[in-house]
């Protein structure tokens, strides 16, 4: 089946099996390997991307379901050589270690801060509860999101 998607603002089309998972379209057909796979049951969130601005787990969606829609992956966060404030804050607050959950965590956070620009700590923790991290204990991820929220509020 022919599937047409826009990924990070760039139009792509591919002839795929109807059962091809969106994450495999992204990673294998289009070779954007920043989106990762960590489970088979939609629990870990390593594969989180934005579909028309909403975070979804791309391991539980067929590529053809994304036909005609816009996808943003971690590779699309940096604009004109400028990192997204969340990318900056994950670095400055030590919000990552092995880096494997990081792209999914970033995508969830990007969508969350758009919806809730001034979150409480509790709201942040619930917002990222669909993304598992085994390295950081979440403390610094929460701090990174708070830091980015403050930066973005500050008129960035």
């Amino acid at each position: 089946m022919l599937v047409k998607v826009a990924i990070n603002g760039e139009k792509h089309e591919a002839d795929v099996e109807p059962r091809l998972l969106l994450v495999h379209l992204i990673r294998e057909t289009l070779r954007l390997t920043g989106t990762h796979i960590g489970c088979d049951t939609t629990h870990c969130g390593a594969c989180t991307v934005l579909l028309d601005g909403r975070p979804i787990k791309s391991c539980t969606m067929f590529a053809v379901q994304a036909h005609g829609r816009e996808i943003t992956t971690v590779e699309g966060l940096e604009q004109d050589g400028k990192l997204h404030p969340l990318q900056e804050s994950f670095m400055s607050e030590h919000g990552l270690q092995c880096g494997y959950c990081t792209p999914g965590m970033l995508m969830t956070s990007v969508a969350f801060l758009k919806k809730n620009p001034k979150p409480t700590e509790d709201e942040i923790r619930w917002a990222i509860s669909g993304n598992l991290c085994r390295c950081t204990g979440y403390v610094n991820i929460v701090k990174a999101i708070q830091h980015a929220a403050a930066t973005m509020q500050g008129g960035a």
Partner: protein
Amino acid sequence: MAPRTTPEVGGMGHSIKRKEDPRFIRGKGTYVDDVVLPGMLYLDIVRSPFAHAKIKKIDTAKATAIPGVLAVITGKDLEKYNLHWMPTLMSDTQMVLPVEKVMYQAQEVAAVLATSRYAAADGAAAVEVEYEPLPVVVDPKKALEPGAPVLRTDKKDKKDNHIWHWEWGNKAETERAFAEADVTVKEDIYIPRIHVASIETCGCVAHFDKVNDKLTVWMTTQAPHAIRTVFALVAGHVGLAEHKIRIISPDIGGGFGGKVPVYPGYVIAVAASVLTGKPVKWIEDRMENLQADSFARDYHITAELAAKKDGTLTALRIKTLADHGYTDAAANPSKFPAGLFHVCTGSYDLKAAHVEVDGAYTNKPPGGIAYRCSFRVTEAVHTIERMVDIMAHQLGTDPAEFRMKNFVKPEQFPYKSALGWEYDSGNYAGALQKAMERIGYAELRREQAEKRKRGQLMGIGISSFTEIVGAGPSKHFDILGLKMFDSCEIRIHPTGKAIARFGTKSQGQGHETTYAQILAEELGIPAKDIQVEEGDTDTAPYGLGTYASRSTPVAGAAAAIASRKVLDKARKIAAYLLEAAPEDLVYEPGKFSVKGAPNRVKTIQDIAFAAYTNHPQGMEAGLEAVSYYDPPNLTYPFGSYICVVDIDTGTGDVKVRRFVAIDDCGNIINPMIVEGQIHGGLTMGLAPALLEEISYDEYGNVQGGSFIDYLLPTAVETPKWETGNTVTPSPHHPLGAKGVGESATVGAPAAIANAVVDALWHLGVRHIDIPITPPKIWKLLRAKGITD
């Protein structure tokens, strides 16, 4: 201690930002599944639905008829090359693919090779296997009963399921101490089977280049060099020589011990690549990862502790049954079948101790890896910390006061434990005191007493653990005969920049940053000018890898020693340039100056340039060094954790209200990274304490084989950790540092369990096995008539 170098140089003590992060936050890391080679084939594995069964027939016809499926590999195919079995790290044997029978649910039965991931999966689903189920042995206690079905029928002389008996300590002295004791306590403690569940699963891309006879394997491994040697030893007879094997461990998405072993999937992928001459990718899915990869823990412990009336602890006695699954594939140093479990006297000055461990075979997956812990140390710490707490409660003494009384005192270091370890340094009372002040211990006890009057359940738990990391001195420590040294090789370029390569492999710990900081500290070359590489056996010096918190204690020490070798030569070159005697030069990081003439200076950059452009006649050009560091002793990080829990009497839910962790890992290289390691370690301590367990039903069906029922903590269950530290340098480590990555995982579960029991002690509760789940507490509260 203030850092010795400027922030620009970024030596020890600076929280410099990580060199790894710019690629990770852009999604530009390279993990194994990101590696794609032209013509690459995919491997998928057929797994057994039975825990114990004869394989009567494998029919591959339907699978091979699927477009894209090239072959189905079975044990019989590997048997032709004598590759159907492989040795384990503990010199037992493990099936790569079975010929006669399967020994656990989810065991590899056959492998399908195909042109795409999806075709391989289709093929795996279409392979038809006929099984004849056999009696299943799940309980290790029953496994050792007379008449139990003998599982390892492949071992000709094996008449039971007993693997080994191991004991340590002075039995007679311990018995005497128990006979003379005023008070003794005894408890059965089960530390359940758990899984590291790194977010990246395991996998590899194997590429055998038939023209050059060279095998390259990109592999999720924490120990690439040892793996290369193992491959050469196991497959030497089919022509794989060590110089023709290259293991590349790229970015690794978490390891925690789970990426130390060699799993059958790796070996099948290598065999498939050697046979076809094409690159072969094998990536396990999460269910395969949880159900078939190495487990951790699974220790059935009976512990006894003896004390005098006045509360002085005297002796510890432990008997343990270790469930190893169908083979002993533990990742321990060879001489230690129960790892370092005999550090179980912990932080306490005991006069006598004796430990016995027996290993048993069952129909479960093999393993015995660490789960972010140094060789069975969590088992040891959990036991002693639970027992000390039980004894304190039994004597009616405050658990903090009781610990203070029985700690090894600062002036006793170096301290020889009753079980023969020489603890390098410590100040246990200092750490506990700091934790008590930070959390407001006395006030919490008052609050608890108040709440108890109102029927509310609140508990305060302490864990004052001692870790043992940095294996290890080569006189005691080896894996398959390979001594547990580690290495660093430094090359300084003419323009004063450097590259350093190591025998370890980071899985998120930030080695590229911390190792650069060690070199910056020693050489004065800015950390940003130092490139750190690991994980490629063709380029890095040989080392035993990263696990058991050994990178800083061993490879970090190698970095310091190699740097000092570089400085020895640099001093001679500086002397030549300054026309002074080498012994007349004064060194401070980054520059040599002439004693008494501080303006006569040569920087490390000047010296590096001269090493290639103007070196003294009679001296070799270049500026480089290598160190293979063999530590004289292990390092003993420690800490005191205090946890406050509130128990919901309606649901049995345990809420961790506060958790203060005071850690001491000696001198600190990067405070930001150390704190991050502790946050992560604490969360992997909370996990088995409250959530995680892999259990089996009577048929050997795995419970907890996916993230649906194997519960990793999310940000919601994880409390806001409160961390702090004390600094007691290691006297024998060149930088005074100790390991840190695992301390918190080792120390945290006991603090949580102790807090829960503390909340319930007045109801007659002495012990609860982890994980302490709401149903467990709810049932207990019902039995006590607290809830209905």
